[in-house]
């Protein structure tokens, strides 16, 4: 058990501390590069998009390409706005939420009540897989189901269905996670009083976990608001405000895509994207805020 003097091994401490500093510098620099796009993208949207913002932009429908062309030729702002997109996004996202929220929350409760059981594990895994399915595939599915067989044509409903399939897995997950955090004693206390099971769910579990579920729902909404690809295959677009769920409908991201493809309308892409981005960010930040206030 002879002690070997460790000092006899060189410690190279200077070199190692230098390496350490270089590495930290690298970490900081790469992290800065990672987040720089968010700043670059938002500032680009603001700089290019704000000047088109006006009362008309929010409250009028899309101009046709001829109107846009003459306006651009005479150096004016493009007339009209994106009301048809705003209303379409509202219609389709609301309908998608209406489908996805009950489905997602009920399944989430089911998973929570059946921890470790085989059917629950299967549902959880399938839901996880659904969450990873590319949105364009969901669009195609909704086209095959709704456009072909139910509305017999492109429709807001078809768009909503594709969005709702995206939302369900996120809501299922957040519901289950939230419920798992509720102490068992709360539930047991209610059950011990002889309260029927469904009342425990509706009156105890869901209210207790409400803010957690709301966070999940808002986050899911913020994820689907900007979806373009599935809507291209299902809702198609429309130049008018449409509230009929069986008819083709526009949406903000669809308008961005149309403007991008129409050289006369190009001026409108930035303001429309900015509006879309603001809406997405509001949902995102509000859900974060709620999640934070829960802790």
């Amino acid at each position: 058990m002879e002690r070997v003097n460790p000092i006899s091994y060189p410690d190279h401490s200077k070199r190692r501390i230098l390496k350490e500093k270089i590495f930290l510098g690298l970490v900081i620099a790469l992290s800065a590069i990672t987040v720089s796009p968010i700043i670059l993208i938002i500032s680009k949207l603001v700089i290019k998009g704000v000047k088109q913002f006006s009362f008309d932009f929010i409250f009028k429908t899309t101009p046709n390409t001829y109107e846009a062309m003459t306006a651009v030729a005479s150096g004016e702002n493009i007339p009209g706005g994106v009301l048809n997109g705003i209303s379409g996004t509202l219609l389709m996202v609301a309908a998608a939420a209406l489908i996805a929220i009950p489905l997602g929350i009920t399944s989430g409760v089911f998973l929570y009540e059946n921890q470790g059981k085989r059917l629950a594990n299967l549902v959880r895994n399938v839901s996880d897989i659904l969450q990873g399915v590319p949105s364009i595939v969901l669009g195609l599915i909704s086209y095959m189901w709704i456009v072909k067989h139910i509305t017999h044509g492109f429709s807001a409903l078809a768009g909503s269905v594709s969005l709702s399939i995206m939302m369900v897995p996120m809501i299922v997950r957040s519901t289950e996670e939230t419920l798992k955090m509720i102490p068992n004693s709360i539930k047991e206390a209610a059950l011990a009083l002889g309260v029927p099971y469904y009342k425990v769910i509706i009156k105890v579990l869901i209210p207790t976990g409400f803010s957690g579920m709301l966070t999940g729902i808002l986050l899911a909404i913020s994820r689907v608001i900007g979806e373009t690809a599935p809507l291209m295959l299902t809702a198609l677009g429309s130049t008018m405000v449409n509230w009929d769920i069986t008819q083709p409908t526009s949406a903000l991201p669809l308008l961005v895509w149309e403007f991008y493809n129409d050289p006369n309308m190009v001026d409108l892409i930035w303001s429309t994207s900015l509006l879309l981005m603001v809406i997405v960010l509001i949902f995102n930040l509000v859900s974060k805020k709620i999640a934070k206030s829960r802790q």
Partner: protein
Amino acid sequence: MNKNIAKIEDPILSVRDLTVAYDKNEAVKQVSVDFKKNSVTAIMGPSGCGKSTLLRAFNRMHELYENIHITGQIILNEEDIMKMPPIKVRRNLGMVFQRPNPFPTMSIYDNVIAGYKLNGIRLKKSEKDEIVERSLKDVALWDEVKDTLFKKGTFLSGGQQQRLCIARALAFSPEVILLDEPTSALDPIATSKIEEMLINLKKNYTIIMVTHNMSQAARISDYSLFMYLGELVEYDKTKTMFTNPKEKRTEEYLTGKFS
């Protein structure tokens, strides 16, 4: 130094006016103490009195956290620890933690020589083999694991894991070994194995050990140090302190009036 603090000739480690504070809360207050070479010193005291905090100051662990402030001097072999690079300090004062913490991604073999690997010291295969064998023999683990050296260390029992962690600290041949309640998570048999081993180790190393277990301190330590509310209350030969404590608080603690 006050009368309750034993005088140590030629100390290997000297602490002067050491104060350690978490933010503004002082957990160790003005402690001065010397440690004798090739002996076992036990640090005792009720929970929260600052034992771990004191021990962790010796190898400058507190520097990893920004909210901890240290003043005072710690001298190892006449060199001021606070002025050495922390890398060098920690090599000279090995540490063993309360809960066994072998590196989960490394084999038993790699765990033992982890110190060399982490410090970027390249060794020949034969040198490594020798260090692994010597260190594992030091902790009486060699016979139990010599056929499974390349399995993960986390497969061992708690007591074996803790001995592996001691071997890991020994492999680097530190001058002082700091142990923070090394047996509190272990069963009595594993504990007595480690105690036996520590008594053997003091031939070559200086051992400073925090313990909650008074009979353990009585069994293996040469010196005992009693702390209360961050202050050093009494420090003496273990035999003297256990038979004839000079301070009332020490006596009360040793007789189990509080813990």
